[in-house]
């Protein structure tokens, strides 16, 4: 059957099960937008392409499916760049479809021509320039396959305008033809045996749970393995939710702002089992003194991550779920009571420093607010964040029990991620409660998407933690730059009026006693809601491992008498 290129695009998307696309039309993708009207795919008109990219990202993280974002050529495509890099750093499967000028104009600096495949080469898993209609079907087939398989990631397909309007025979290929792309899923038995030998000898093992556990749906296998071998589980920022926070073996988050006892457990352990994580500098501190007594087993689907930052004793390349499931029958049951006791000691010491155990002093602390939201939502909401202090407090105090509900920009650290990713997540889980926790700085970066939320009726609750500071930069200036505050003091608009102008119900909260009621009001109000919390201006996130310091050299919150 002959079809136009633009129609083929939608034929492919429908076959890939795409239900929603986040995009923005323009000169070079108008044929695609014209054809769209005949296909059962919902299109969300975003206010800025970066917002569209984050929405597709949030949708993908919450649903486990491939997200799709669209933009036109030139500035439309370049506006996607931050969102593409965000998806790349966190291995999120998103297919980006951009329009390009007609093939015969390429290289001539035509109107709105930009070398998008060139620009996005280092921030995509793979990308394509399509110049003919008959390339579209196989390219999109490959794009979706590459995006979701192996170590997932963003794939960009740049489609020339002539390819959109030309017609050709449409056949959707059964299998992608990719001779150079064969992700490894299973580790050889000999290496599994090497790992088992290390596990047998270990007295102080720790599992480091990363995003890979969630991406490969290995939560069940992780639980079985941890319980069978009585191994405590520390999470990376992105691994939160893969292992229930309330489980006795959970150590919470590790790293720069991780729990002190999680970091101490790692530094004192004799065996590290890294599950789908990549030893980012934010979780290791300086590598010279990282887990010095530990042997290391690294389960990771991307071979280039093996020995990249930390040299490991046994690399197990493969899908985390498959490899851990293969390991479970090979290991014996252990109890590590002495080790768990030692960790409990560190936990007890931490309690006196925890702001949650302090007496109220009449000020609004973000940690308290997050705990309040956690309590009100039963710990079951999908929570998105921007980047900075509020993100770390949310990671620490919104205790995630279930997977795929914690959406945050980890590797890239992208401000402005919270609101759009929450809107995207809503399309994946309309029956779930969704909270976007934002800072006053980050919120202003993508605040225009409030209108998108209204237009779509997206039921997302936005909590702005307003301290009139770029809080994390301020904290660094306080700790490491002799409190010389440089460009961190921020005037904010009246967020309640701003929300009002968008037709979004909003409230400002300044006292702790108003918090509970405000949260309940937001939860009961249908559609998008904004809550602005005027929080303590110069609070700091503790503990903190200074950049370049060892993981156990943490700046701790000063001890105060618990209530």
């Amino acid at each position, binding site marked *: 059957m002959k079809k136009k290129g633009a129609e083929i695009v939608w034929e492919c998307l429908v076959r890939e099960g795409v239900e929603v696309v986040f995009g923005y039309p323009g000169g070079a993708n108008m044929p695609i937008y014209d054809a769209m009207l005949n296909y059962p795919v919902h299109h969300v008109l975003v206010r800025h392409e970066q917002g569209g990219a984050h929405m597709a990202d949030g949708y993908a993280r919450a649903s486990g499916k491939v997200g799709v974002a669209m933009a036109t050529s030139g500035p439309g495509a370049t506006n996607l760049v931050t969102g593409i890099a965000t998806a790349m750093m966190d291995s999120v499967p998103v297919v980006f479809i951009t329009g390009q000028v007609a093939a015969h104009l390429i290289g001539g600096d035509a109107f709105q021509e930009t070398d998008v*495949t*060139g620009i996005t*080469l*280092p921030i995509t*898993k*793979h990308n394509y*320039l399509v110049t003919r209609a008959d390339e579209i079907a196989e390219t999109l087939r490959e794009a979706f396959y*590459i995006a979701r398989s192996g170590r997932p990631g963003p794939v960009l397909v740049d489609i020339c305008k002539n390819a959109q309007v030309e017609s050709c025979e449409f056949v959707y290929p059964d299998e992608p033809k*990719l*001779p*150079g*792309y064969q992700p*490894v899923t299973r*580790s*050889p038995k*000999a*290496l599994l045996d090497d790992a088992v030998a290390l596990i047998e000898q270990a007295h102080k093992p720790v599992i480091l749970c990363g995003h890979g556990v969630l991406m490969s749906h290995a939560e069940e296998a992780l639980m079985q393995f941890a319980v069978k071998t009585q191994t405590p589980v520390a999470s990376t920022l992105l691994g939160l939710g893969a292992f229930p926070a309330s489980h006795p073996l959970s150590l919470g988050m590790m790293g720069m702002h991780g729990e002190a006892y999680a970091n101490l457990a790692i530094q004192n352990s004799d065996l590290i089992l890294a599950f789908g994580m990549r030893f980012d500098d934010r979780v290791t501190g300086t590598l010279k003194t990282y887990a010095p007594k530990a042997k290391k087993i*690294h389960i*990771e689907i*991307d*071979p*280039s991550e*093996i*020995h*990249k930052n930390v*040299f*490991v*004793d046994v*690399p*197990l*390349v*493969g899908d985390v779920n498959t490899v851990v499931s293969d390991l479970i029958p090979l290991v014996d049951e252990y109890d590590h009571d002495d080790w768990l006791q030692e960790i409990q000691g560190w936990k007890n010491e931490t309690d006196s420093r925890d702001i949650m155990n302090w007496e109220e002093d009449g000020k609004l602390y973000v940690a308290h607010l997050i705990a309040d939201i956690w309590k009100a939502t039963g710990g079951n909401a999908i929570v998105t964040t921007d980047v900075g202090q509020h993100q770390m407090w949310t990671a620490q105090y919104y205790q995630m029990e279930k997977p795929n509900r914690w959406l945050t920009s980890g590797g890239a650290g992208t401000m402005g991620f919270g609101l759009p990713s929450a809107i995207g997540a809503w399309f994946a889980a309309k029956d779930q409660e969704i909270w976007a926790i934002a800072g006053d700085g980050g919120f202003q970066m993508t605040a225009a998407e409030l209108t998108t939320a209204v237009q779509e009726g997206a039921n997302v609750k936005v909590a702005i933690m307003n301290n009139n500071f770029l809080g994390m930069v301020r904290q660094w200036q306080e700790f490491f730059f002799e409190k010389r505050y440089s460009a961190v003091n921020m005037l904010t608009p009246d967020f309640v009026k701003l929300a009002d102008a968008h037709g979004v119900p909003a409230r400002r909260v300044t006292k702790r006693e108003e918090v509970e009621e405000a949260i309940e009001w937001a939860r009961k109000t249908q559609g998008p809601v904004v809550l602005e919390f005027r929080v303590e201006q110069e609070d700091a996130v503790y503990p903190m491992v200074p950049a370049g310091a060892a993981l156990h050299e943490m700046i701790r919150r000063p001890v105060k008498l618990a209530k």
Partner: protein
Amino acid sequence: MNYTFIALVENKPGVLNRVASLFRRRNFNIESLAVGRTENPDVSRMTIVVDCPNGDVDAHRIEANLYKLVNVIDVQDVTHQPSVTRDLALIKVKVGPERRAEVNGLAEIFRARIVDVAADSVIVEVTGTEDKIEGMIELLRPIGIVEMVRTGQVSMTRGVNEGVRRMPGMSDRHYDDISVAAMVP
């Protein structure tokens, strides 16, 4: 030290750019890169010489990262394998009739050829290993090199030998290629 890799890649537009961009982004220093068609029209072959200050550690990183490129089909490290390596240079030497015989003599020793003769210059074509070409250049330099071009090194393993394929964790054999002790910087 310089390592030599042979990469088989899909013969598609932009693949050279992807490989070059990878080396730039990951901060690897390319000494030479030669690309050409193979017996299979769908496959191009690259010989890449890279400076690897950390030895096998860098070599592993380069291979693993090359495999991340969707268009890369196979990567071998032939640095320590019995192999034939060749580089071709064209060297234009400023020389009149009076010293032509001297250049001719040098060319003969190096099994090079004079491929063009003009009134006051000749072009010497020399093929061989890096060392041999460097040697030839050193001897021609005092006579007067006007212009020079080199293809970059191409390599092929001898007989049934194959290069090392390092993909840690993918098979028992490859895991043993590098001891962990050797990888600690």
